[in-house]
Every structure is written in structure tokens, then in C-alpha cells.
């Protein structure tokens, strides 16, 4: 591509087309540009356009295209072709800084980004003159240019803040310091002087303050890894000026905007960060300056307003004080009673106040409010910072701080008492203060677990919390109501049980409050109280204690779901689930109504599932309803099926993907309740469950396998009789699962159920093929997990069909196959089998092979008899081998097909473990002894001689123990 007018023209046309809203115009243009970008001079054509085009739109478009081109192509990847020619690279580096600095801001930003991308690859080795070129511009006196340089430098250096120390990194920093530190310092001083000269010129000040902010950011990056010698030597200059800027206020720079932070706030906020960096990492060197900064930052806090625009500054400033006050050698800075009082009064209390922004959120954006207030996403808020400062101060001054705040709490409560309507916010602050003062440790599961002993929580509850909860009008002062509910919720582990019991009916009443926050908190508090454990690990609050208010609880919870904005309120649904779980059979009388409401809800949400937690708890609640009711009366299962199947059918027909795993689990639960026959309604669905599309989704596999297992258990005969044409499809599912390293165990679950429950004659034609598939997988990619499942299956087959059948089918596939499997798989690997049921199956299966398989006695397999017995005794007596070969650690990753709906297991749809052998064999060791005895009587003399020739002494000893316990002798 030549650098000529014709090409510039063409490029201009295509760039213009990339801006076209019509994708049929836009896409081909984008494709064309991508197809030519490998040509030499392409980037230079873009640079020419962004500099010289007459059309501003084209200039910006060229700049953006250029930056994206650099982003995609600049990095040279080993073993891949260099995507940008060397002459182009050289030309770009030679011109870009100049171009960036002389361009208007929109283009400057793009080029600045491009420089930092190039810098990341080439700087410093392959771009040695970049820094000097930039530094020279400091002397230009043009702050448009200077800010361009500073911004570029910032994007180049900011990685010093998070990268690990390395010689390479530090060499680069050293080089940067050598060229950059002194000019930066000079620029800093000069800029501050200019601020004084132009103190009355707003426009000049704005530019200068953005420079200062960038300089302060650069300072942070350059000082992050370690304290550079240069900055240690010039600490006086920097810190004195930073301090000066912290205390500076210029009316001209104050903004009217309430939300957006102004230049002054941004600069001061960065200075707080810089001071915090030095205080944390370079304490020894910074010590002489620290007290000054503490005072300045404290004064700053006292004089800063409540507007949202100051939030970041205030929270940074408070966090600075919080980190300093807990260091032992700065203790003295805070020790004085007056200082402590002022900090409490002027810094902490004002920042704990409920602001109008909080009030707006409470009313109009309750989700956000709840997330901040309840779930702890309040990291950068003032309240959180103030709380951290309280905690920091309590490290050394718990007594005095508690005393000071107690005074405040009392006076704020008194204010409230005088005129509640005007002063309710004082009470809110008082409650917040008590909470932050009292809470020393907290978890989601238990609430506050350690409290400040100097705060009387019970008394506060009785005098100030309970009255609000008891007030007849639940809709009055909703914020205070929410505070009171939250108090009960978070201090639940600290309050005596009788007070909690006193609170429960009141909380139930608050479920009817119109305020979303309030009724959500009530639901959440109830849910948390119901999970509390008492002695004996039972629930603290019992179903009996709840009896008087059971009906109201259930009523109010469902009514709360009717409030606008709470239709899919996960807290309420979780409280429903938890109430069911607590109340157990007490809910049975209400089930007919409840199930109607739940299915109605399910039908609604299935139209557009959007709240995963809500939906999950909804299904859990359904499971609980089924379990609790059918436990008392299994016959009621049909009424649930009547209620649920229409909705389930709709969900299946509409393929509501999120819900399918849940539906399969509930269906399994229902089917498992049936006693030994399968209703026709289920059979009608059976062919649909085999559809490949369902099995392509990972999240469906576990619940579908379980459902098919339930089908087989209850309806093996029925399937063989009336749906025999579906057996290949069923086995096809097995084949599909077995091919995957991630899902093969699920395939075995299914296969085991097939072998266990299907009539043998229905499978005859498929048996050989099943084994061939297993052997192929064994040959192709065997993993420990596969082998373990394979061993369990082989032994189950042996138990079910007999040892002779097993040997014959193996040997029919390939001569001597049976011996090979015993020798290469069973004997060496059986020790790895885990799980009590699995172990029992293997023990019984191997016992059968040893004692009921003539080929083991009379053919060349005889040489395997003793080793197999020895392996079985080892299997009984030695610890399980849980080692995993090194090459298998990453299997899961290899088979993960990317993100898909994860399997959402329902806790209350749990399945009991199935033992196919059951009571038929009590103790497998005794079975072995008895079976050997039987064998030895059938062919006297052979067994003892085989034992004495090659069984090792230790194993023999164990075996004798079994024989004794079974009171049999070998002959």
C-alpha cells in the first residue's frame, strides 16, 4: 500500500462506511479494513488521516481504528509472524508522541492509549527515547501538551502499582526515575507556583489542577514498589506541597454539581492515597510528616459537606485515619480526650447520618439499598469508613470511645423522643452507632458473633428497639422499623431466646409493611431466626413454639409476595422455604392452599425466569411440601402430581432451560414415593426424556440420570413390556455419557440401574455391545474415575447374572479376555474403589468369581486365583488407595464445554442411597469364608493347597480369622 492520495481517499471511504448504522454497509467495510491491515503503510495511512483529514469525524474514526489496530497487532507472539513491518513500527514510534501532543483531546486520548500499548511491549529497550521525548515537553509551558504527556506517563506507569517485584520491572522503574523524577518534581513545583499566579483565573486553574492530579497519581505509581532514593531525598518538597494542597481551598474550583467529584476533591483524594501509601510502607521515613497529615486530613473531614461528590474523598480520608490510629506508635496522636471527642463528634457521627441520598435509595431503589445495607457492598461508603474508624479507635480506646458515643447515643435518642417526626434520623444514627460500636465480629450465618461488652444490647433492645416493633402502625417511620428489624436480625446470637420469641410475632406483622425494605427485612430476619440452632443441634425456635402464629406467618409471607416490587423477592421466598422446613407437619393442613399459590407463582415466573435465587427457593419449597405431606400419607402424591404436572408440561414444552433441572428433580422425588409401579402419566413422558437435545446441556445430566434411575426402579418391567423399542435409546444415553470423562460416572449410574432392574431377557441382545463400549473406552482413555466405576459395574453384573455369565461374555468378545481383565484391571485397581455400597458390591462380586466360576479352577485362569483372593483380602484390610496419577489432575478442565447452566441441586429433593445387595449379605468377609468352605467341600484338598503355595502369610492370617468367625473349615 503506497502512501498516496488515492489510498487515503479509499481508506476515508471505508472508514466512513464503518460508521454506518446499517450492518449491511458497516460489516463489509470492517471486513475490508481487516483484510488490508497486514499491508505495509496501513498504520501510516491511518496516522496521516487522523492528522490531516478535513473531516473531524474521519479524524476521530481513524484514531480509534488506529488504536484498535495497535491493540490487536503490536505484540510480537513467539512462533507467529510479525504483523506489523519493522519500518512501520519505527515510523509509528518516531511520530506518535508528537502527533498525540498536537491533537485535540478526543484524538489525544486514543493516541495516548496506543502509546501505552506500544510502551507495554517496547518500553524501555525498544523505545529508548520515549521518555526523554516526553520530558522535553514539560518545558513547553503549554499545559495542554503537558497534560497529554502526564496522561500517557500515567498509563505507562500505573502497572507499577500491581505488578510483582522483579529485576526487569525494577530496572525499568529505575530508568524512569533517572529521566523522569527530577523533571516531574520541577514541574510539580512550577505548577503550584502557577496556581498562585493564576489564583483568580478559573480556566487556567482547571488545567493546572488536572495537571496536579495527574502528577499526584504518577507520584503514587513511582513510589509504589519501594521508596526510591530520589523521592526520599526530595520528600520535603513533595510532602510540604501535598500538605499545602490538602489544606487549600479555592472558591473558584468548587463545583455546583452535587454528585460528580470536582478537581479539588479528586486531587485531595489522591493525596490521601499518597499519604496512606507512605504511612503504610515507608513509616520510618514518613514519620516526621505524619502528624501534620493527620491534622490536615482531620480538618478536611470536619470542613467537608455531606454531598455525594465528596464521598470518595471522605471515605479515603477516614480510611487513612483508621489505618493510622491502630498503629501503636501513633496512638499518642489520638489519645487526648478532646481529640477523641472531636473525632467522634465531628468525623464519625456526621458521616453516620442518614442522608437524603440514602432516603431516596430506601424508597425508590430498595434492591440497591438492601445490597448495601444488608449484604455488605458498602465498601466505599462513608458509613462503612466511619464504622472502620470506630473499630480502629476501639483497638486502643474502647472504653473512652464507648463512653463518648454513649453520650451521643443518649442525646440523639432524646432529640428523637422530643419530636419524632422531625428527628427520626437521629434515632437512625443512634442505632447505627450502637451497631458499629457493639459489633466486633460478624458472619452471614450467625449475625454478630462477638460484641463489645461495654454496650448493653439487651437493654437497648427493650428500651429502643421493641417499642418500634410494637408500634401499631407498621407503615410509620419505615426506616426506623427497618433499623429495628435489622437489629434483631444481626444481634440474634447475642439476644436471649425469650426476646427473640417476643420479636417473632412482631416480625410477622411487619411482613405486611408497604415499604419494600421493611417487609424484606422482616422476611430475612425470620428466615435467619429459623435457622438458629439450639442445644442438641435442633432448631432454637421449635414448631410448637410457632404454633400460635403459624397461620399468620404463612398468610403474611404469601401476602408479602403480592406487594408491587416484591413479586419475585428472594428473601421472602427463602423465608417461605425456611418456614416449611421448621414447621414440618404443622403445614399439612395448609398445603392445599399453599400448593395452589406456589404452582401459580411457578407458572408466572416460568414465563420469564429472571431471579435465580427466588426460583431456586420456590422449587425447594415445592419439594418440602411434597416430602412433608407424603411422609404422613404417601397416597397424597397423586394430588401433587395433578397440581404440578400441568405446569411442568408447560415448562417442558416451552423448553424453559433454567427450570428443567429443577423439574426433573421434583419429578424424581414424586416418582420415588410411588410404591413399585409407574403411573401411565410418567410413561407417556418417557420417550421425551431420551431426546438428545436435553442431554446436550450439562446441567440436565445429573437430574435426568436420577429421573431415569427412578423410572427403571419403579418401571423396569413396564419399560421392557410396553416400551422395548426405547431400550436402544436408553442405552444410547449410556453410550453418550460413557464417552465423556466428565460424565462417565453418570453413565455407570444409569447402566447399573438398567442391569439391576430390567428383566435379563430384555437385554440379551445388547449385553455384548455394552461391554465392547466399556472396553473401548478402557483402551482409549482410561482414568481412575472410570476404572472405579467399571469395577463396580463388572461386579454388580457378576452378582446379578453370576460369575459364569460374566466370564463367558468376556471370553466371547475376545479369547482370554476374562483373565486379562482380572489381571490388568481388577487385581491391581480394586483397592481404589470407594464408598461402602460400592465396596460391598465388589467384595461380593469377587467372592463369586473366586468360588462360583469353574474356569477359575480348571483353566489357565487358575494362576490368577490366589492373586485375586489376595487382592480381595487386601481390599478388606488395607486403607483405600486414593492416589491419582499425575496426568489426571486436569481432566475436568479438558472436558468442560464452557459455561452452561450449572446443575442446581435441590437440598430438599435429596435421595437416599440405594444398596442393590442390601441385607442379603451382612458381612462380606463371612460370605467369603462360607463360599470358600462350600468350594472346598466340592473339590476337597484343592483350596488349602492353593492357599499354602502362594498366599502371603499376613493375608492367610486374616483369612483364618474370617473362617473362624464364620465357624467353618476348609477341607
Amino acid at each position: 500500500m503506497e502512501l498516496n492520495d488515492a489510498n487515503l481517499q479509499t481508506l476515508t471511504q471505508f472508514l466512513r462506511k464503518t460508521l454506518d448504522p446499517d450492518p449491511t454497509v458497516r460489516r463489509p467495510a470492517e471486513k475490508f479494513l481487516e483484510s488490508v491491515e497486514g499491508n505495509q503503510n496501513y498504520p501510516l495511512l491511518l496516522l496521516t488521516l487522523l492528522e490531516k483529514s478535513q473531516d473531524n469525524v474521519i479524524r476521530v474514526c481513524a484514531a480509534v481504528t488506529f488504536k484498535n489496530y495497535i491493540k490487536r497487532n503490536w505484540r510480537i507472539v513467539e512462533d507467529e509472524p510479525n504483523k506489523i513491518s519493522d519500518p512501520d513500527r519505527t515510523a509509528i514510534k518516531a511520530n506518535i508522541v508528537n502527533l498525540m501532543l498536537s491533537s485535540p483531546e478526543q484524538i489525544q486520548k486514543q493516541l495516548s492509549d496506543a502509546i501505552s500499548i506500544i510502551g507495554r511491549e517496547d518500553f524501555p529497550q525498544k523505545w529508548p527515547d520515549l521518555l526523554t521525548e516526553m520530558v522535553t515537553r514539560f518545558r513547553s509551558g503549554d499545559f495542554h501538551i503537558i497534560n497529554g504527556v502526564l496522561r500517557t506517563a500515567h498509563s505507562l506507569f500505573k502497572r507499577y502499582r500491581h505488578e510483582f517485584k522483579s529485576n526487569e520491572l525494577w530496572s525499568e522503574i529505575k530508568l524512569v526515575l533517572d529521566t523522569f523524577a527530577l523533571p516531574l518534581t520541577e514541574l510539580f513545583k512550577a505548577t503550584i507556583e502557577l496556581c498562585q499566579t493564576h489564583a483568580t483565573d478559573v480556566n487556567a486553574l482547571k488545567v493546572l489542577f488536572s495537571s496536579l492530579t495527574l502528577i499526584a497519581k504518577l507520584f503514587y505509581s513511582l513510589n509504589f514498589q519501594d521508596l526510591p532514593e530520589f523521592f526520599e531525598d526530595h520528600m520535603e518538597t513533595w510532602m510540604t506541597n501535598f500538605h499545602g494542597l490538602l489544606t487549600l481551598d479555592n472558591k473558584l474550583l468548587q463545583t455546583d454539581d452535587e454528585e460528580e467529584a470536582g478537581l479539588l476533591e479528586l486531587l485531595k483524594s489522591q493525596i490521601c492515597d499518597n499519604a496512606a501509601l507512605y504511612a503504610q510502607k515507608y513509616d520510618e521515613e514518613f514519620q516526621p510528616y505524619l502528624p501534620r497529615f493527620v491534622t490536615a486530613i482531620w480538618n478536611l473531614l470536619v470542613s467537608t459537606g455531606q454531598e455525594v461528590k465528596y464521598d470518595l474523598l471522605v471515605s479515603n480520608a477516614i480510611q487513612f485515619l483508621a489505618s493510622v490510629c491502630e498503629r501503636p506508635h501513633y496512638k499518642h496522636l489520638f489519645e487526648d480526650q478532646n481529640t477523641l471527642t472531636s473525632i467522634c463528634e465531628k468525623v464519625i457521627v456526621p458521616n453516620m447520618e442518614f442522608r437524603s441520598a440514602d432516603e431516596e435509595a430506601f424508597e425508590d431503589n430498595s434492591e440497591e439499598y438492601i445490597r448495601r445495607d444488608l449484604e455488605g457492598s458498602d465498601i466505599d461508603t462513608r458509613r462503612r469508613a466511619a464504622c472502620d474508624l470506630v473499630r480502629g479507635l476501639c483497638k486502643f480506646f474502647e472504653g473512652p470511645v464507648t463512653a463518648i458515643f454513649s453520650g451521643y447515643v443518649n442525646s440523639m435518642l432524646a432529640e428523637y423522643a422530643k419530636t419524632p417526626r422531625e428527628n427520626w434520623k437521629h434515632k437512625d444514627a443512634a442505632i447505627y452507632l450502637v451497631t458499629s460500636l457493639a459489633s466486633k465480629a460478624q458472619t452471614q450465618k450467625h449475625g454478630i458473633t462477638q460484641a463489645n461488652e461495654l454496650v448493653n444490647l439487651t437493654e437497648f433492645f427493650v428500651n429502643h428497639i421493641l417499642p418500634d416493633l410494637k408500634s401499631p402502625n407498621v407503615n410509620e417511620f419505615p426506616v426506623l422499623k427497618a433499623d429495628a428489624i435489622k437489629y434483631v436480625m444481626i444481634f440474634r446470637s447475642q439476644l436471649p431466646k425469650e426476646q427473640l420469641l417476643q420479636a417473632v410475632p412482631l416480625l410477622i406483622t411487619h411482613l405486611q409493611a408497604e415499604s419494600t425494605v421493611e417487609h424484606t427485612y422482616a422476611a430475612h430476619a425470620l428466615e435467619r431466626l429459623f435457622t438458629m440452632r439450639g442445644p442438641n443441634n435442633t432448631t432454637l425456635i421449635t414448631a410448637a413454639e410457632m404454633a400460635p402464629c403459624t397461620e399468620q406467618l404463612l398468610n403474611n409471607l404469601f401476602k408479602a409476595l403480592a406487594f408491587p416490587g416484591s413479586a419475585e423477592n428472594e428473601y421472602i421466598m427463602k423465608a417461605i422455604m425456611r418456614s416449611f422446613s421448621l414447621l414440618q407437619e404443622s403445614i399439612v393442613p395448609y398445603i392445599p392452599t399453599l400448593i395452589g399459590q406456589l404452582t401459580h407463582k411457578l407458572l408466572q415466573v416460568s414465563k420469564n425466569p429472571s431471579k435465580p435465587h427466588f426460583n431456586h427457593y420456590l422449587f425447594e419449597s415445592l419439594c418440602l411440601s411434597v416430602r412433608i405431606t407424603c411422609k404422613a400419607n404417601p397416597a397424597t402424591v397423586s394430588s401433587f402430581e395433578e397440581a404440578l404436572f400441568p405446569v411442568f408440561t408447560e415448562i417442558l414444552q416451552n423448553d424453559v432451560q433454567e427450570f428443567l433441572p429443577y423439574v426433573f428433580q421434583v419429578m424424581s422425588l414424586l416418582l420415588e414415593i410411588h410404591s413399585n409401579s409407574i403411573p401411565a402419566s410418567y410413561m407417556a413422558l418417557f420417550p421425551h426424556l431420551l431426546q438428545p437435545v436435553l442431554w446436550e446441556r450439562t446441567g440436565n445430566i445429573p437430574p435426568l440420570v436420577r429421573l431415569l434411575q427412578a423410572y427403571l426402579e419403579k418401571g423396569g418391567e413396564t419399560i421392557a413390556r410396553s416400551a422395548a423399542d426405547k431400550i436402544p435409546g436408553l442405552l444410547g444415553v449410556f453410550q453418550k455419557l460413557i464417552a465423556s470423562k466428565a460424565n462417565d460416572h453418570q453413565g455407570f449410574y444409569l447402566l447399573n440401574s438398567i442391569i439391576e432392574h430390567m428383566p435379563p431377557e430384555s437385554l440379551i441382545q445388547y449385553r455384548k455391545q455394552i461391554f465392547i463400549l466399556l472396553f473401548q473406552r478402557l483402551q482409549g482413555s482410561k482414568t481412575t474415575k472410570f476404572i472405579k466405576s467399571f469395577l463396580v459395574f463388572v461386579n454388580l453384573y457378576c452378582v446379578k447374572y453370576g460369575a459364569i455369565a460374566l466370564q463367558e461374555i468376556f471370553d466371547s468378545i475376545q479369547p482370554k479376555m476374562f483373565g486379562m481383565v482380572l489381571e490388568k484391571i481388577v487385581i491391581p485397581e480394586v483397592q481404589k474403589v470407594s464408598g461402602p455400597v460400592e465396596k460391598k458390591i465388589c467384595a461380593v462380586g469377587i467372592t463369586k468369581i473366586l468360588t462360583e466360576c469353574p474356569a477359575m479352577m480348571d483353566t489357565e485362569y487358575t494362576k490368577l486365583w490366589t492373586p485375586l483372593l489376595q487382592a480381595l483380602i487386601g481390599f478388606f484390610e488395607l486403607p483405600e488407595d486414593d492416589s491419582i496419577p499425575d496426568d489426571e489432575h486436569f481432566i475436568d478442565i479438558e472436558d468442560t464445554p464452557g459455561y452452561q447452566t450449572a446443575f442446581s441441586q435441590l437440598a430438599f429433593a435429596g435421595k437416599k442411597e440405594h444398596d442393590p445387595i442390601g441385607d442379603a449379605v451382612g458381612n462380606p468377609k463371612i460370605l467369603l469364608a462360607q463360599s470358600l468352605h462350600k468350594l472346598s467341600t466340592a473339590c476337597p484338598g484343592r483350596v488349602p493347597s492353593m492357599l499354602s503355595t502362594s498366599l502371603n502369610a499376613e493375608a492367610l492370617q486374616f483369612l483364618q480369622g474370617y473362617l473362624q468367625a464364620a465357624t467353618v473349615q476348609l477341607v
Partner: protein
Amino acid sequence: MPTKNVTDERLSKFKNKGKDPAKLREKRITECVELRKAHKNENFLKRRNITLSSLPDEEALSPDYIPNELVTHLSIEDIIKDVNSDCRKSQTRGCQAARKLLSQERNPPLKEIIDAGLLSNFVSFLSMDDEPTLQFEAAWALTNIASGTSWHTQQVVEHGAVPAFISLLSSPMLHISEQAVWALGNIAGDGATYRDVLIECNVIPALLSRISPDTPVGYLRNLTWTLSNLCRNKNPFPPLSAVQQMLPSLVQLLHLSDKDILSDACWAISYLSDGDNDRIEIVVKTGIVPRLVELMSHQELGVMTPALRSIGNIVSGSDLQTETAIDAGVLNVLPKLMRHPKASIQKEAAWALSNIAAGPCKQIQQLITCGLLPPLVHLLRNGDFKTQREAVWAVTNLTSGATVEQVVQLVQSGALEAILNLLQVKDAKVILVILDAINNIFMAAEKLGEMEKLSLLIEELGGLDRIEMLQNHDNEMVYQAAHNIIEKYFSDSDTHGEKVDATEDEFAFQSPDVQKAFEF
């Protein structure tokens, strides 16, 4: 100069590397880039105006003695004239004037003297045994030049001063011999190259022969300092044969009581032990470890510091080498040093502890039994940043080698709370090391079946919030590590196909037509 810095390569420098990759012992690393100022209390590389202990009363020195006030006014030109004259007296006068000029504190005219070509004169004066005053003045002048920059030292060496100084060591005049000791110390201190030039010229036997019960203490001080410079610098280390030659005398010197001798002898040991396990072994074999441990409690900071550093180096060696320090009682001394008012001592002590914590669980048990956990937690909470960093390594090392019970003791001592608080430090590496420790502690909890209890404890201590916040960290590895912990220990688990021929309705159950024989 031995660096006090711990670098990123720490992980690849475990002392037990190869034996157990989980062990995190670490050596000092020399060649790393520094941003900081050279450390302040590092002992000086070269010295100019040290006092000669054996300098006789000046007037009594010789009949040629010229009082100070008469020589100080000589200009460089006069000096050049004097030194180049044939008259011994003028030469002495010139030489002395030059020496005085070179001894001045501010901007001694090193370059001017060299440029005037006087070095060859001075060197030739060194061999004039019959002119002791001239010999002495020349030696002093050359010493001062050699104390300059490397270039200055190079000029002195290239003029052939080394053999001349070495033969001066055996001068019967003690102050001349001592001046030679001093000059050679400055040359040795320049770096590994000149150090080895000196060793090649057999400086060591010549020096050691001056040590006798009668040697004045002042002389011994300078001699010890020179020996320490001969032990100094890595890449390469001083030759093993030279080390073997010096060690018996150093051991001897370490049993004296003079604090300056002890200080330099300890520094010498600290240089010799600052290397791989073979180097450490040579030091350990001398049996000096108990004495070094004893000197860690010396009241002089100048002795305590290098003694601590030497022991720190030794415990970065093999388990057996560490054992000798433990047997010598290092674990009884460390708690006191960890509470020392000076931050640099705390840091060095924490570093030593981090290496002991990287040992086998038997040594970890000794560490716990000797009560090292409380001071460790104290440092995690209250130390300065560099000390906290070492203390964090100690915790992580301990958690990777300790038994389950030992980890429980660590947690109960308050270390978990302390490291969780440190998750807010502004250092990506330290954060990653802490996250490692948290993982290790979870593995111990898993064995005890107390995972849930630990998760709750971490949440109570405010750790969960901090770990969650780290999922926004700009450092990819920190983000990943934090994310993994959250996924693994603080959330519910998740679960997860392949192509099998299928129709719309069901999969086809079939086996491939071609079949090879099975062979497992």
C-alpha cells in the same frame, strides 16, 4: 554489598529446592536492582581516615619529622616539585603534604595527585625500608587514594602498589605495617576482582602472621576489618582455599571481647555464610555457631546486627545446618530480637524465623515450644512494612510444612487474624503469599473436618470481605488466587458431554464396526 532485599525470585531460591517444592526457604539475593538508598547502617566499604592505633607520638617519629603547620600550605605544584626531587627530605616533605591534602574531609584532590603522576613515586617509596618516614607517608597517601572511587583504587593497583603493600605488612615498624593493612583493606573492599588479586598475591598468610597474643588491640581491629573485606562480595565468592585459610583466625577473633573486632569478624562471617549450602557448611563446620548465637544478644548493635545476619544466613541452609543454630539456642534469642526497638533488627529476626519455619515439622515444633508464635503475631500486627512482609513469609512457610496440630496452634495464636488484616497492604506479592497461607490453613482444616468452622472464622475476622475485594485486584495472579479461595471455600459447588450419533428423538446405541483386539 550484601543486600537486605528480598526479591521476587525468592520462591525459586528455597533452601530445600528439589527436596520439597512446598518449602519456601529463601536466600539473600545479591544481584537485584535497588530503588532505595543504600542502607544507612551498612558498614562502610572503604575507609579513609581511620586512626592508626600504632602511630607513635609524631614528634618522636623521626628526626625528619616536619610539624604539621609547616607543611599544610604547600601547593600541588610544590608537592610535585618536592616529590620529584632527589632529596629525601624534600620527598618526605612533599609526600607528607600530599598525604595531608588527601586526608581532608571535603573534596580531597585525589585526581590532581594522580594526574600529576605522583603514584609511581609513592609506590617506589614504599620499598624504601631505610626511610621509614617516607615509606609511611607514601603508604598513607596511597591509602587515601585507594579509598576513593573504583577508578582511584584502580590507579593505585595499576601502579604496582599491591606487592609493595604486602611486603610492608612484615615491616618491623608496627605503624607502617598497620598502614599497609589499612591500604590493603581499602583495595580488597573495592570488589571481587581486586579482592582476588590480593588473595593471589598471598595477602592472607602475610596478614594472619601478624596475629599474635601480643598484637595491640587497635592493630587487630584494622586487621579484622581488612579480613572482613577479603571475605566480602559475591560473584564470584572468595576462593574456598582463601576462606579456609581465614576461618580459623576469624574464629579466634570472635572469641575476643573488643566490640569493633567482634563487629568486623561477625560481618566477615555474615559474608561467608551468605551463599549456597556448601559455603554455609564451611562456616558451620568451624563450630562457631554457638558463639554467633551468643553474640546475637550482644549489647552493641554493631555486633548484634552482623551476628544476627550470620545466623539468618545459616538457617537459610539445609535442615541440618538449621539444626545447629537451633541446638545453639537461636530460638531462645529470637523473641527478644523480634521485640527489639530497631525496625531493622525486627526485620532481620523475622527473616531468620521465616527460614526456620520453612523447615521440617520437628523444627517447627521447637519454634512453637520456644514461644516464637506470640512475638511473630506481634510483628504481624505492629511491625513496619518490611518486617510484616518477613513475618507473613514465616506464617506461609510454617503452614506449608506444619502438622495439622501446629497449624491449629498458629491460628489460635492470632496469626490468622493478623494476616487477614494485612490483606489490605499495598504489595501484590505479600497479598499472594497471605492467600497461599489461607489455602494451606484450609487444607489443614479439611483434614480435621472443620472447613465450615474456618470459613466462618475468616468471615468473622473480616477476612471474607477483604478476599472478595481482592477479586477486583489488578494483578491477575492475586485476582485468581482470591477467586479460587472464594469459589472453593465460600460458595456452593457446581457440576458438568461428547458426540454420539443421534436422531431427533434419541441417541443411537451402537459400537463402531472396526475392531482392534483389546489390550489393557
